[in-house]
């Protein structure tokens, strides 16, 4: 599998008695949108956290573009091109959308021990931030304070902040959580566009969106991948039906 951008090999993580990641292997190919689904508590967020390096796995390896990044700290992984969005929105609410994203750009622009030049005047920070906001459709709203924006817009800022890090692979943790039908549709359109430029690992509870967007789907239950395949194959898979899709309603309610 030469075109795998991300390879996860036999990853395991326990929290006391809970097995959050259980001998998990999967890969995301160049140009692919790979969806990761599974009931609440299946270990989806925990997997993302291990990929970004914020959490250390007990065993197993993570390869990015063929290189073993298992022992790299989080900031070095993000410099290589791994960017995540958060399941729970976490922004700088007292700053404008543009300031939020510009900070994400600044995080990748060397050290910040620069005390004199006005940061808001630096094209090196502002231009990529503007571009990322325009990309997610917030070009007109850049100068509005995040606190005054809707939840749907917050989700979009989250994505813009991930894009601002110049990623090669986007790790999106439930970008549609809490969105209304209209906002969800907007997000699906956006993800479909992003998919053209980035490899994406998408964690999402919205099955309609997942089946519409994904090239491949992996189903996670109790930290273990019980199936990986094209959407049609997953839909037809008996194990998956039993373990997950049958109880989908109950699950989405939690999400």
């Amino acid at each position, binding site marked *: 599998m030469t075109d795998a951008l991300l390879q996860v090999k036999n990853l395991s993580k326990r929290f006391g008695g809970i097995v959050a990641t259980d001998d998990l292997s999967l890969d995301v190919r160049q140009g692919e949108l790979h969806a990761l689904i599974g009931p609440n508590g299946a270990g989806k967020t925990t997997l993302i956290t291990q990929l970004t390096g914020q959490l250390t796995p007990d065993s197993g390896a993570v390869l990015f573009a063929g290189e073993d990044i298992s022992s790299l700290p*989080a900031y070095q992984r993000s410099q290589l091109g791994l960017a995540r969005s958060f399941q729970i929105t976490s922004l700088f*609410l007292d700053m404008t959308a543009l*300031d939020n994203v510009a*900070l994400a750009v*600044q995080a990748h622009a060397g050290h910040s*021990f*620069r005390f004199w030049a*006005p940061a808001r005047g630096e094209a090196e*920070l502002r231009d990529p931030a503007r571009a990322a906001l325009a990309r997610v459709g917030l070009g007109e709203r850049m100068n509005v304070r995040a606190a005054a924006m809707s939840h749907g817009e917050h989700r979009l800022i989250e994505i813009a902040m991930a894009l601002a890090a110049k990623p090669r692979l986007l790790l999106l943790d439930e970008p549609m959580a809490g969105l209304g039908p209209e906002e969800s549709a907007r997000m699906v359109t956006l993800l479909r566009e992003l998919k053209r430029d980035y490899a994406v690992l998408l964690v999402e509870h919205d099955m309609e969106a997942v089946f519409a967007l994904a090239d491949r789907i992996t189903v996670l239950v109790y930290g273990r991948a019980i199936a990986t395949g094209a959407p049609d194959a997953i839909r037809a898979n008996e194990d998956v039906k039993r373990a997950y899709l049958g109880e989908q309603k109950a699950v989405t309610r939690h999400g």
Partner: protein
Amino acid sequence: MMKQSLLSVRGIAIAIMLLLLALLPVYSHATGNIFALTLFTRILIYALAAASLNLIMGFGGMMSFGHAAYLGIGGYAVGILAHEGIASGFVQWPVAIAVSALFALVIGALSLRTRGVYFIMITLAFAQMAYYIAAGMARYGGDDGLTIYKRSDFAGLINLSDKVQFYYLCFVLLLAAIYLIYRIVNSRFGMVVQGARSNEKRMQAIGFPTYRYQLTCFVIAGTLCGIAGALLANNTDFVSPAIMYWTRSGDLMVMVILGGMGSLFGPVFGAIVLLVLEELLSQFTEYWQIILGPMLLLIVLFARGGIDGMLGRRTHD
């Protein structure tokens, strides 16, 4: 932000305040009102100390309850050197700055490992420690403090014993400090510090090692306050442990909150209002604190952005 708002109510209020402060010695000279000059010299020095606290507290979200310690360190650096016969300001002031910076580095390195109430308590504890150390220095007056017989000598460059020259030195240093803070908070460094106030976890998640930026900010603030301490010792020709007592740190916090947290000129408003009220009320009654306390409480409760907020400044929330 400085530029855009020049024509607003707020911009005009700030301009008038600066103009009045600049002209105060003229007024005092014309009317022979020396008292006003003395009072406002003290106000400018406290405004400088409050501005430095505002950098960490207002912009950085670091609620230091021990900021008066640097007033004492700067003051004692001048006092002790003078006592030992070293009157040159070119020695005294760099020492005041260096010792304040070093003290801030140590206190910051330890206290910034904690957050919230713990941070407040640890900064308070360090300041109280400095207070008791000063009170124990028998050679330098102990509890009673240390009289400074000769003000810092700048070899004829400026005469600190001249009331007007000293006033303008305080005024210029205050403006310079505010300009420095203005540049800092709008720089990349300032964005990081303010980002950490807003959402520290997120800052770390996007790859900022926040601790070292916050510590640097803490040291800058402590150093600026050390300069205020050197001024204060010269102003009173005296330094004593009381300058570091926790109520003094509390006063500085009140000035910052009163003026408007994270507002560039807020600490100046805060220092003027607090010290002038204190002066006026204490002339009417010896129980002035009983009146001042509730007044401050009302301002803080009802004008959440402080004085600068009332003038129309948008605050973060």
